[in-house]
């Protein structure tokens, strides 16, 4: 080995070590890579993927529960609602409570981080401004009888009513949105949110596009939800008493 070979070898080694110091190697532990206390994590992506993505979808869509990555939904809902739903869950539904005060695992700071992150990631500022959007919440009484007509007008081309028919091999399935078991598991508020904001990930239209060119009014949405609520059954999910042919169940 002559001197030049030796020197170039030494140079190579030295530069290797230097770059090692320069944090370019995959093994370099990045700050924060040590596991923090789980109650100190305030990174939105991590909080979301550990606590929410199973039901609301990996990117806030294509989950079995309502899509949070829907800018229309983000435009109608306010921070307080988000915070209280995440902290306390929704009574009578499968949305769990996450706040430590309500038996969950998240601190208030983490819930704030979630709310902030939901907004930063999925809300678009100025979205729906000027549009005539039915409000997220309403105190108005709905007229169920009129609601049924609303269903006929806006929804019946895509949905059926009554007990969800069994899928008969391969044919495209049509959702019944008044199946007794379905209605027993979902809240009126959630139905309202889905009707107004739609589920763009699944192909269910928002309030403007259920009947293209004819947006639903606040009253229509309210009546529709009232009608759907009136279809709730006393003993849902049980074979007796059966829902009759028209799909109308026994009223609560």
């Amino acid at each position, binding site marked *: 080995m002559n001197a030049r070979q030796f020197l170039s070898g030494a140079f190579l080694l030295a530069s290797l070590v230097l770059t*090692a110091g320069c944090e370019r190697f*995959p*093994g370099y*532990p990045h700050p924060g890579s040590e596991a923090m206390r789980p109650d100190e994590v305030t990174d939105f992506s991590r909080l979301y993927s550990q606590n929410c993505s199973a039901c609301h979808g*990996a990117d806030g869509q294509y989950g079995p529960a309502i899509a949070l990555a829907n800018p229309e939904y983000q435009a109608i809902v306010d921070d307080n609602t988000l915070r209280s739903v995440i902290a306390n869950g929704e009574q009578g539904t499968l949305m*769990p409570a996450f706040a430590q005060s309500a038996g969950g695992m998240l601190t208030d700071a983490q819930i704030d981080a979630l709310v902030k992150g939901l907004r930063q990631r999925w809300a678009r500022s100025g979205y729906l401004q000027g549009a005539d959007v039915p409000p997220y919440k309403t105190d108005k009484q709905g007229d169920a009888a009129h609601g049924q007509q609303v269903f006929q007008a806006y929804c019946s081309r895509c949905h059926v009513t009554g007990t969800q028919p069994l899928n008969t091999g391969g044919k495209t399935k049509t*959702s019944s949105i008044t199946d007794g078991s379905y209605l027993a*598991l979902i809240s009126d508020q959630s139905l309202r949110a889905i009707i107004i904001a739609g589920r763009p990930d699944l192909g269910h239209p928002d309030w403007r596009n259920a009947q293209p060119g004819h947006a639903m009014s606040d009253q229509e949405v309210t009546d529709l939800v009232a009608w759907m609520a009136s279809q709730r059954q006393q003993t849902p999910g049980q074979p007796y008493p059966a829902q009759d042919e028209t799909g109308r169940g026994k009223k609560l």
Partner: protein
Amino acid sequence: MSRLKEVYNWFERRLQLEGPIKEAALHPVPRNTASWWYVFGSAAMTLLMLQIATGILLAIIYVPSGGEAWKTLDQLNHQLYLGWFLRAMHGWGSNFMVAVVLIHMAQVFMFGAYKFPRELTWILGVFLLLMTLGMAFTGQVLRFDQDAYWGLGIGASIVSRVPLIGGPLVHLLLGGPIIAGATLSRFFALHVFVIPGLMLLFAGLHVWMVLKLGINEWPMPGRVVRRETYIQEYNEMAHKDGVPFVPDALWKDLFFSAGILVAVAVCALLFGPYGPGGQPDPTIIQTAPKPDFFFLWLFAVLSYLPPEMETPFVLIAPAIGILVLLALPFVAGVGEKSWHRRPVAVLVLITVAVSWGIFTHLGVHTPWSPVMDAWSGDPLPQKLVHSETALERQGAVVFQAKQCRNCHSVGGLGGQRGPALDDVATRLTEDQLIRQVLQGGGNMPAYGKNLSPPEVNALVRFLETLKPANRPAAVDASQEAQAQLGK
């Protein structure tokens, strides 16, 4: 030059090391021992030296106190130039050392090298193995993170089961009734003074005997070891058809050791240091602590043992294992060395290696323990959600909310406590699904009381969608009969 020579001579007259060193270096060894199979012992020695060197550097920074340990490791990782690399070298060096020591031992076993007159070399080797494992365990404790904390907890609970003296032993091990600062000081002393001191002593004697007794010759079927004649036969072989140990045999050792060091460095650069994982705080319950790689097999074995077998197993099995290893050269100290004539030895080695591999694999995947945040963390496959009806989709929410996912995977995500459910609809009919959900069984809890009728209904409708599109759903006899009638 002559000046140098004078200095050398001055020392040599007093030390008189030249003779023994030359003799050791140039002593003849049988030609066929200069084989690649014989390099693991020296590689283990090299790794020991690496661990000592990197360990000393780490000890300069590390503070063995409950409050500081985690912080100093964090500091090494992030604030000190190349500190992370140092930690990574020490951590990977430890893994390599355990592996190389085991391979060395397996090779010695296969080649019958523990037989007369090398019994004591083997026995020291067994102790060196135990000490290597001891170093690996105490080192993991010094990391003082969650894994360390729970690892210690398990260690302590194993010790506590020793009859009569269990309690005092735990006290001695932990330096008090609980895992605290005193525990860490104890393990620091063990890891830095006690075990390495003993290890150096034992390793020195071990190498001394290798030099004195000669390297084991390549085993040949039919060349039988007899106490009366072996030494003479060996010396003849070494002198007639021998090569000097340096350089003929040594260069392969050097080459391999260098390769191992490079491999350690590459692993360190690619995979980085171990942890530290979460802080050792028993109030953190969202944790799934796991021992370091080498102890995973034990972790798996303990998980599978029925509870009443645990105490006998953890107390008696290791003792038996060590006794068997120690007794080996006395029970089988003479006779055939070649593996061609030792089928039992070959089978034993294969069995041990395969079981170790299987248990380690299980330890990595821990299929016995539910994944505690799968219910809220693991998304369902997009396509599945997309193609469902509103009711089925709500059933999927029930599936997640009731934490079925913690035990059952879908789309490759989720726990493995129960079977994957991706094609459960091809196996079970609606009735069977309802029964399984309501009554559980076979290690699945019964959900009957925890699900409302609409929840069961939605859930089962969802489960019925879990099948590949091209495969028929399960049908029972009455459905089949009905289908026949319809035709």
